[in-house]
């Protein structure tokens, strides 16, 4: 199977911004200054947002996506103009998107009637607003989609991008995961979690990650970088198997696609959402204790729709300090599971 190669990485998280800072944070295991406050630091966003004025009124989820995409382009060492056109695709994953603008729009409607309902809040609250604005900023005229789901949605987005690349529908594809937090987000998920009876996820986080993906071409990049092999499934939703068995199957599927054996896995990026206890049990049983565990949620919280891309970016970054291959694992509150096997592209 044709490998999908990471050409550029952009990361905007509460603990670090940009590939280098993010890699360093992962390697050193640094914690955020104020644990539990998983917000993007004031002032960081505009520093990374080219053309910030043009999108200054966009929702946070959109602005995070714009910043991450701009960082990925810079990380790839190309100019923004090179990605414009119909041979570039864009897949964005979100769970709730611009919930801040959504509630502001609705609050205006409830309190002041139709005249209090802001057209800006409405148009920027739609779920594909991050995708629409990134496509405008970068001139992307190929396939542009928004995938909805919980933590695994980012890996579904990678899977869709991989299919577009393998079918030669596009030559490069951005995958962006983005999410914003706020009072309403904490409240909504808190109530959902209490009512579901599941083990707690990390507190809501926010931010964005972007991967610029291309078909694997050693001649183009000297065989450096990371190759991705996604696998998506579900846990405990079929009558014939249990959740642990299903999750193990997803992990095995990703490793098989990558041609990796269990012993090749040097690090695992742990889920940030629910079912973390289940995931740890399966990982212990399936991979043993040897692979290094990267508990990203402790650094960035649970950024739901952004989590899958963020975790995959973390695994790709970890290749620089952890010998061998990696695995990013996502488990969603709704029972979706996804894994990406990440291995170095270096040949021979």
């Amino acid at each position, binding site marked *: 199977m044709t490998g999908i190669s990471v050409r550029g990485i952009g990361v905007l998280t509460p603990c670090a911004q940009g590939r280098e800072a993010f890699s360093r944070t992962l390697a050193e295991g640094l914690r955020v200054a104020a644990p539990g406050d998983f917000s993007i630091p004031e002032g960081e966003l505009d520093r990374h947002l080219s053309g910030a004025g043009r999108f200054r009124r966009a929702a946070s989820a959109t602005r995070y996506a714009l910043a991450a995409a701009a960082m990925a382009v810079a990380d790839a060492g190309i100019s923004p103009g090179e990605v*414009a056109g119909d041979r570039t695709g864009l897949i964005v994953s979100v769970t709730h998107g611009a919930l801040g603008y959504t509630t502001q729009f609705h609050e205006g409607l409830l309190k002041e009637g139709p005249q209090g*309902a802001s057209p800006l809040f409405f*148009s920027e609250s739609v779920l*594909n607003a991050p995708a629409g604005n990134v496509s*405008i900023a970068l001139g992307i005229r190929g396939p542009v989609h928004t995938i*909805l789901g919980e933590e695994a949605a980012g890996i579904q987005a990678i899977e869709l991008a991989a299919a577009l690349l393998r079918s030669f529908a596009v030559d490069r594809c951005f995958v962006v995961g983005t999410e914003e937090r706020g009072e309403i987000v904490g409240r909504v998920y808190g109530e*959902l979690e209490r009512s579901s009876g599941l083990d707690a996820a990390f507190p809501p986080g926010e931010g964005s990650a972007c991967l610029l993906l291309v078909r694997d071409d050693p001649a183009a990049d000297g065989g450096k970088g990371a190759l991705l092999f996604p696998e998506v499934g579900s846990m405990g939703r079929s009558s014939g198997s249990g959740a642990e068995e299903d999750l193990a199957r997803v992990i095995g599927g990703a490793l098989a696609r990558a041609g990796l054996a269990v012993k090749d896995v040097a690090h695992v990026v742990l889920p940030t959402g629910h079912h973390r206890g289940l995931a740890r049990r399966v990982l212990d049983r399936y991979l043993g204790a040897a692979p290094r565990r990267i508990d990203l949620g402790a650094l960035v919280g649970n950024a739901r729709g952004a989590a899958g891309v963020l975790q995959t970016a973390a695994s790709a970054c970890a290749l620089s300090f952890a010998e061998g291959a990696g695995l990013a694992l996502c488990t969603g509150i709704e029972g979706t599971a996804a894994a990406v096997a990440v291995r170095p592209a270096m040949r021979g």
Partner: protein
Amino acid sequence: MTRRVAVTGMGIVSALGIGLPENRARALAGQSGIRPVTLFSAGRYRARQAGEVESLPLPPWRRFRAERLDRGTHLLYHASFEALAQSGPAAGGWGAVPPMVVIGTSIGGMISGERYHERILRDGSGPGDAWMLFDYLPHSQVLHLMAELDIAGAPVVFADACASGANAIGHAFRSIRSGERDLALAGGYDPLSEFVFAGFNSLQALSPGLCRPFDRDRDGLVLGEGAAVMVLEERGRALARGARILGEIAGYGESCDAFHMTRPDPEGRGAMDAMRMALADAGVNAAAVGYVNAHGTGTPFNDAMEAKAIRAVFGAHADRVPVSSTKPMTGHVLGGAGAVEAVLTMSALREGRIPPNLNFETPDPACPVRIAAVGEDRPGMEFALSNSFGFGGTNATLILRAASGEDE
């Protein structure tokens, strides 16, 4: 050899009715389902009508308390179960590989979200209100459907605004044609919510009168609600199990304007790209297309752009090929529009009759295409094209093919 993708089941709920027979009959007869809004008080808006689904019954959910689910979930249930009943692929269980489920929506369970948010603003909220959130997140409706149908696996949920449903069908089509999957449930849905009504009102996009796509005096869209789902299946597999083939998805094209968040590129470049890509994907010339089901929202910007793009793609054939929008009958179903219109377009192919573009009275020089103002009998059509364009500049085009005589 290229795998072909058959449609073996269709289900639809719209303002025209509940179920395919009623929708097909009323659409081809040119009857409108637009009526005054009853789901919320629309008296304070300039526009006061929409394409509501009348008397939507609560489905007999086995796993969930029906009254706790969002209206959107019920719409999706009705369309999905109708499509599956017609196709009958699960008669002996799903087998080792469950069907792919690909659904598009733009607002999901927004009605539930509105109720929750209104409650916490008014009264505060306690854990007892959490059930209102049970079905709010816009991928929840699909998960509930899959649980009800005992379908394992992860759904793919597209939120590509008004192109969501068409992209869902297109993605399922590609996955089957490529050999990745053999069977899929694909479509889209959206309920009518005041949130969205107020949103389009704030953008001054709603018509206070009639939706009249491509008419010189068009002044906006009329919202609707509904759901439509197709069972898509590798044709050989369908034939082997004796399924009735209703038609085929023959091609799919997608593009992005990269122009503006809510306005289409007036030059229509993205729309042209999607149509050309879909035609090439199907391996047919524009001249082979017997009917164009337009996105045709009735807004000044969309219709002029779309007509220009159709003219550019179809060339001289644009003088002959009938074009109509079914939105004056159903209202704009947003995330479900592409799927609703795919089902109506397939019905047109099957019946050899084109649904009319209602309310078209005065031609607009800016819309140089042949509008089918009244229904037309067109027996023997083989291909039809359906467009869907959305916020964010997303464009999708499907090419549908009539069933051949040997399939029936």
